[in-house]
């Protein structure tokens, strides 16, 4: 099968799985997850085939896999949709396929497949656990299976479909479609346990917040289509189109058309990948099941935002001369860098194991955006992928930890213990070794532990790029952010795994099912190994051991190949220091912290995330409520519209009544009755004459009619 046809087929299996599960296999849990995982595996297979074929192609950046069909007729032209796999989307496809498959498998374990049915579980609430009786007659609680198991797999199937569509699509429109499908799915999945008010609110919040970005993105798309008449990447990213776009000036901030469109699309990214100021939804999104967190906040959706931004890179940098960032780029760089630092600081003060990761995700995405803003294209992609791997790993690991903790909680029966609070953990190293080691690897990768981990290489490349192009502000900000990253990562690891168990639940925590640990192991392999494909040529000692394949491959996407920047010792030393220093301090500080009180860093402003929720609440939510309540509802709706309508209704009713009284009853009904009665009478008279049951009589009658008709036909029509 040709690569193109495979690519066409890649998104379909999850969609089919969705419909199959929803329509048919909803009853049978085993069937549902087999269908979903089978579909994911199919897509994964297709993705791998395509990826390795792409790698096999020489100068793949020049001859990409592309095919398109006519979709919507627009006058005499067609709006084409199609698939495009260039180096960028190839590598994206690679990590997306891997992470999605892993997460699907992980979900089987996380949703307690094979466990008994809960005692009092309700759909829409997390399972409370089930009582079982072992051979000694001891009753004790064990995790119980998710009541809406099949539903979960249906949703993530749809989600996977959206992501694959977004990755393989060759134009903004279908990309946006996948984008929105994912928005819907994130809403559904964050609110998966809709029994919990917090989950409901989080879902709505995520949906609304991202919607803001999406509206701007749609604006950007419409503008682009208006300006160029096409949405296909390949047609947009031609020298001519780009130069035209770059040269046209728009009234807004004196931005060029390219810059404006880039900015608008970038706002979509801001919403999707939770950049400041639209970052607020992501931490709350942790209400969803952990695989969902991993899926949305590591592997797919947030990455999708960055992916879209990277896609638009040629557009954003259309009027980029090489020195001196354009307005758009500087905005992007600023937002990225700021977000990176800002959320890193918040992450330091979080106690919820998943929230820490959520904020760290925001900050890491900030890294990427910043890199993009300063034109470090390859570095951004590189970090996107490595981050996808180790962040998925971390999320799944945390999920595994929580799962183990919940087991302990159920075992002790002390439900006051929050299974997600890191201060209730500690010493899990012994209890759940696989989780520990994989989490450690992920953590080190996140904090950029030198040489060994993937995170180091990608982050180092970003820093080096920033330094080389002399964006010192960005450089310093990111360096500090990196330091904080290392710090809170180590904090997390220390609190969670090292030291002694701080609660009985932690004592009774136990290692999780192989379906959960296996993905951890596989992902940790990538979390370490994937970095080695991007080692700069002239890195001391290691440089050139493995050729910088990634730079070559992905760099081919752009029109002119990004130059390999010459090696500089300073950024390397910086990243080394920040990483190691951060880790060290983190360990030193939290080595023997027993409880929240002893934590020096529980600063109120950090804990409350700089009061962003409150501010937004005050600025937007409350006014909106007020507006809708007082103006829209009370005045406009009730007074004006309803009043008018009621008048009209009354008048109409009056008219209708009079009609009924003086016209309908006497005239219409009278006529109707007259006709009916007449027909009845005539029938009474005619029936014995016509209906006499004599065959010949009928024949005669029909023949008379036939002859009359024939004569008329002949003389009138012929």
């Amino acid at each position: 099968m040709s690569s193109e046809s495979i690519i066409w087929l890649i998104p379909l299996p999850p969609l089919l799985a969705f419909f199959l599960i929803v329509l048919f296999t909803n009853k049978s849990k085993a069937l549902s997850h087999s269908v979903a995982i089978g579909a994911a595996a199919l897509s994964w297979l297709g993705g791998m085939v395509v990826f390795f074929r792409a790698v096999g192609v020489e100068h793949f950046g020049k001859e990409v896999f592309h095919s398109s069909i006519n979709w919507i007729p627009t006058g005499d032209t067609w709006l084409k949709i199609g698939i495009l796999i260039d180096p960028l989307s190839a590598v994206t496809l690679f990590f997306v396929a891997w992470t999605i498959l892993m997460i699907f498998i992980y979900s089987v374990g996380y949703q307690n497949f094979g466990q008994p049915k809960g005692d009092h579980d309700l759909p829409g609430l997390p399972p409370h656990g089930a009582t079982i009786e072992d051979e000694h007659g001891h009753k004790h609680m064990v995790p119980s299976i998710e009541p809406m198991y099949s539903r979960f797999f249906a949703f993530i199937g749809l989600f996977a479909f959206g992501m694959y569509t977004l990755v393989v699509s060759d134009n903004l429109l279908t990309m946006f479609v996948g984008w929105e499908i994912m928005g819907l799915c994130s809403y559904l999945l964050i609110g998966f346990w809709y029994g919990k008010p917090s989950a409901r609110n989080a879902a709505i919040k995520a949906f609304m917040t991202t919607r803001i970005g999406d509206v701007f993105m749609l604006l950007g798309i419409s503008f682009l289509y208006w300006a160029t008449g096409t949405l296909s990447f390949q047609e947009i990213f031609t020298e001519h189109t780009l130069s035209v776009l770059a040269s046209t000036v728009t009234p807004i901030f004196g931005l060029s058309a390219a810059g404006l469109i880039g900015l608008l699309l970038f706002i979509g990214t801001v919403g999707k990948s939770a950049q400041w100021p639209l970052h607020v939804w992501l931490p709350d999104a942790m209400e969803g099941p952990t695989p969902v967190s991993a899926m949305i906040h590591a592997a797919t959706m947030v990455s999708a935002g960055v992916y879209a931004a990277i896609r638009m890179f040629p557009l954003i940098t259309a009027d980029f001369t090489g020195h001196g960032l354009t307005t758009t780029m500087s905005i992007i760089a600023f937002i990225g860098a700021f977000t990176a630092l800002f959320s890193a600081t918040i992450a330091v003060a979080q106690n919820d194991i998943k929230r820490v990761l959520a904020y760290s995700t925001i900050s890491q995405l900030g890294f990427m955006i910043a890199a993009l803003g300063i034109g470090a294209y390859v570095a951004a992609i590189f970090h996107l992928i490595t981050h996808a791997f180790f962040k998925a790993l971390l999320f799944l690991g945390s999920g595994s930890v929580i799962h183990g903790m919940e087991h302990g909680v159920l075992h002790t029966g002390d439900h006051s213990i929050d299974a997600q609070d890191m201060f209730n953990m500690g010493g899990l190293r012994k209890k759940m070794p696989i989780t520990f080691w994989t989490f450690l690897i992920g953590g080190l990768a996140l904090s950029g532990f030198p040489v060994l981990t993937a995170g180091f290489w990608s982050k180092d490349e970003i820093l080096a790029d920033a330094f080389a192009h002399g964006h010192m502000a960005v450089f310093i900000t990111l360096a500090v952010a990196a330091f904080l990253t290392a710090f809170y990562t180590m904090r997390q690891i220390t609190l969670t795994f090292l030291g002694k168990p701080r609660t009985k639940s932690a004592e009774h925590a136990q290692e999780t099912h192989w379906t959960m640990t296996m993905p951890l192991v596989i992902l940790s392999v990538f979390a370490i190994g994937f970095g080695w494909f991007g080692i700069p040529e002239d890195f001391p000692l290691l440089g050139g051991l493995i050729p910088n394949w990634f730079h070559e491959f992905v760099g081919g996407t752009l029109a002119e190949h990004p130059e390999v920047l010459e090696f500089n010792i300073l950024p390397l030393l910086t990243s080394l220091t920040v990483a190691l220093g951060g880790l060290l301090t983190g360990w030193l500080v939290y080595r023997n912290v027993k409880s929240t009180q002893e934590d020096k860093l529980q600063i109120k402003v950090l804990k409350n995330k700089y009061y962003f929720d409150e501010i937004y609440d005050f600025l937007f939510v409350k006014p909106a409520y007020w507006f809708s309540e007082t103006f829209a509802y009370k005045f406009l709706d009730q007074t004006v519209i309803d009043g008018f309508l009621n008048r009209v209704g009354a008048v109409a009713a009056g008219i209708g009544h009079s009609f009924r009284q003086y016209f309908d009853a006497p005239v219409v009904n009278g006529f109707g009755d007259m006709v009916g009665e007449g027909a009845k009478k005539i029938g009474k008279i005619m029936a014995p004459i016509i209906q006499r049951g004599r065959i010949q009589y009928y024949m005669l009658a029909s023949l008379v009619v036939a002859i009359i008709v024939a004569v008329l036909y002949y003389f009138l029509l012929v």
Partner: protein
Amino acid sequence: MTPDQIIFLLCAALIVSSALMVVTTRNLVHAALWLVAALFGVAILYGLLQAGFLALVQVVVYIGAIAILFIFAVMLTRREKRDKGPQINQNWMISALLAFLTFGGLTYILSSWDGFSKTANALPTGVDTLMVLGKALVSPDAYVLPFEVASILLLAALVGAVFIASSSKE
């Protein structure tokens, strides 16, 4: 006035007169016999049209089978031998009028057709019409399907007739 035309006119006279007798005579057996005469005339017409096979089939089917069946039926469905009273129902006038109208209408329409009074061109010599007909009846690209359907129809009619006419034995 060629011999053909003479024969035709004689046949036409035979056919029309005996057909009229069929629909008017009181004695039903006579009607059936007149029908035989009419059909025999039709057979002669077929012969005149150089469709000898059809002529013989006409004789076999109609005179040999159908007419006999009619006579049987007439004899089986009567109490007394002679048919008394009028054999025509009361609205026979309308019927006659209609029949006449049909005839007139048909003739009128036909006469307005340009191919109305064309004469036949001689049959191609050396071609055995019977052979052609047989091949046409059984060749898959011609009329084998209608042929088979007709045979099925005959079988069904056989079974159905036997079933209907057989006196219920309970």
